[in-house]
């Protein structure tokens, strides 16, 4: 499909919505939501807009998305609250933990520390955009095989960092990988396995 023919999304991902309405993921059934009308609606309505809302366009995972946002919104909050792309996590909202790591023009950056509206000319890649046709990216597969996560909350950021770390060429030694992956905190302590995963995927 030509770039101009690709549909422009105007808002909200159905992904999370499906999870709420009861279809399971990975063998886990989620209980039906009590009290909300979500099951009957196709879109999540957020009719409220701030007085100074701005119209912007973002290129995320090769899709162009038009949306109206609060100009103060960080890229992270835009992904999570506006677009329901909750794969990117908010750990601290202050640039201290790396959980919100995404790629902007192929470089790893912290989405909590930047305003969404400044990225209209950038190519943004999130964790949701790594797998191709349902096949895990080699780094993702290496994480699974090496048990490079436990609770999984830092994992999106770790994977995005790892993909970039390998591309940057910062995998010449265990010490180098450790240093260049130190920007992603893992409280569960999966660190040694993360190193193994990066080593495996960088071969």
């Amino acid at each position, binding site marked *: 499909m030509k770039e101009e023919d690709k549909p422009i999304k105007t808002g909200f991902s159905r992904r999370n919505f499906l999870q709420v309405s009861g279809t399971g993921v990975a063998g886990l059934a989620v209980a039906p*939501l009590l009290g*909300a009308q979500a099951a009957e609606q196709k879109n999540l309505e957020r009719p409220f807009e701030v007085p100074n809302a701005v119209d912007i366009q973002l290129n995320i995972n090769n899709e162009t998305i038009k949306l109206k946002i609060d100009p103060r919104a960080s890229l992270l909050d835009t992904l999570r609250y506006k677009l329901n792309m909750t794969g990117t996590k908010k750990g601290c909202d202050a640039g201290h933990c790396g959980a919100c790591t995404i790629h902007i023009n192929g470089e790893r950056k912290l989405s909590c520390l930047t305003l969404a509206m400044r990225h209209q000319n950038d190519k943004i890649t999130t964790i949701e955009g790594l797998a191709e046709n349902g096949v895990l990216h080699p780094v993702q597969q290496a994480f699974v095989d090496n048990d490079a996560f436990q609770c999984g909350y830092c994992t999106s950021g770790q994977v995005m960092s790892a993909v970039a770390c390998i591309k940057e060429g910062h995998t010449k030694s265990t010490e180098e990988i450790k240093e260049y992956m130190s920007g992603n905190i893992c409280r569960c302590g999966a660190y040694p*396995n993360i190193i193994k995963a990066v080593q495996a995927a960088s071969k």
Partner: protein
Amino acid sequence: MEQITKPLNRVDGPDKVSGKITYANDVAIDKLAFGYLVSATIAKGRVTSIRTDKARSQKGVLQVFTHENMPKLYSPPTYISPFDPSGDSGQQKHVPMQDDKIVYDLQYVALVVAESFEVAQEAGHLIEVSYEEEKGTYEEHPNPKDAEELEFLFGIMEGDYHRGKPEAAFEASEVKLEQTYTTQTMHHQPMERHGTTAVWNAGRLTVYEPTAWIFGHRKGVAEMLGMPVEDVTVISPYVGGAFGGKGLVAPHTGIIAAAAKEVNRPLRVELTRKQLFGCVGLRSATHSEVKIGAEKDGTINSIIIHTTGETPEFQKTAFESSVIAPRMMYSNPNMRAKMEVAPVPMSGPVPMRSPGEASGLFLLESALDELSYKLGMDPIALRKKNHADINLETNLPWTSKHLNECYDVGAKKFGWDKRNPKIGSMRKDGMLVGYGMASGSYPTLFHPASAKAKFLADGTVELIVGTQEIGTGTNTIIRQIAADYLGVAIEKIKVVMGNTRYPKTPPTVAAFTAASVGTTVAKVCEQLKTNLIRRATTNEASPLFGLKAETLNISNGTITNGTKEESLQTTLKRAGRPYVETQLQTQYSPEMFKKSSSSFGANFVEVEVDPITGWASLKRIVGVYDCGKIINPKTAHSQLIGGCVFAIGMAMQEAAERDLSNFRYLNSDLGGYHMPVQADIPDLDLSFLDHTDKEANILEVKSVGELGGVGLQAAIMNAIYHATGIRIRSLPYKPEKLLEIAE
């Protein structure tokens, strides 16, 4: 047994690496409102005025709550006992925003509810609060002079334990050691912040909350709101880290639920990272005075420990129970272990990974190391000399104990024989090298749980348990257990968890999930198996009709005795049912109290210290652990490394820093509170001994999750002492603590 002991990849792995797991605060809800809690900027005193007009004027603000208009909330009961986890579940008696008093730093003073996060956050910043601060003088560690009696210690009313004649035995000893050890306040800081999404419908409440105890949360929230437990549902299938926290219900859940009801909108409030320092529990700082009396041959006669832990001024509780683990570690016939608490303006503490063992084995294993040098005795030999053949606290034999083998195997892997006992005698590339070791131990507890097993017409099995996945791999090992105990292919097994509508289980704490939920799953599967076999043998149309049940087994989804067989799907179809399910609840049994069950481990550490700057680096760690049968070596090993990383944090770099003029935090963010990063972690060689424990439980497992890292803090400081001659008795290490290094 095919699946148990296999190092399977986690069942939720592919989703976790793809960002597809829905955590509590990811759940998409229609018409969701967003909230922002505002925290106090004093630690003690009261609010004299609170102005919300600027906040309210922001477009999109729905309501602003303060103590002036907050609905009434009740105190949740806080008598927490590991022996009755269906009971009380409140982190603290104090509920913020019910009056004008401030009793700890970062206590909530206001809640903004708005249409968006940005609006709520900015409105929060615009709230103007005036305080009357109550000054005090505070110290870096709890002071025994301020000590008061504990209300209770983990439900065991023995803050003061003794056996034999500890004081007399100490006085009569040939060799005496008297030292003081301290640990500092620590915070769980899971990567996923706490937060509540509260949804009301016709007077019933659903709470999405990352919690390590959905049933405890349900009870605690219901109590705070003054409503029937049955009208509350808590959903938390995946939790982004708990580490002993997120288990006791914190006041924010009640506040957010009450606010949601008032504004009549589903409401999500995520705590700020800063609020995770003040408001959701922590590991209390401790100050311990230790006396050890021994003979010249290394026999320890008496150990006396007096610990003072920090505690809130409004409730005298502490979970960092340093005095419990040392009671059972060694064979000293005389012992006193007393714990008291010193009140300071802090919020309710909660258990934090290896609560009590962390500080208790730091002090004990450091003291033993000091004793070994005083005696001129190898540290391992000293431990072996005082090996506890039975648990002297309970006077019960162990279900199994292979601690000596842990020392031997660990010493060999580590190369302990290369150790030159002379302080500062080992060098590498100009750096000082130090070797240190320490024992570790953690109890294997059991608590009643219930589970449901359901066989469906399509040949799949649902294992339904109301437990929660905090990252330990529970949903993966449940599948393995079910596959083996039921005889169904693992691919056909689906684990359903994390909702209080499911069968009740205890919290995911204290490393007892495998022993509790795991054994319950095994038993309910056996029960389902019996049920299904009976359906076949009592059905005339079945080829298995009339056969004795004991002669039959289920293998790969088929009931068989080797010659005759029938698939479970056929049995079900023949029975004319869409599914067969059965539920089982396990109980305590008298058998369980006849023996003592603990896991054991030995930690070995190599450190390097720059002789010029005194900066210490960990070089490698070897740990060998006795944990019985290992259901999934991959996930169990991950628990070990997680525990070690945690202990490294406690030993080398983590501590709350407070302004001692007002007891307010100085480092309440992840930039100032230094959890370990990749570069802090040396090579970790951690392994299990290959021994099962048939006496512990039907699964032959002992506890894993909290053992890793227990004792490691001492091993590290012991190694630093070996390299430098400087004994660090006050955690954490800081570069200036080795400033006096001899060059």
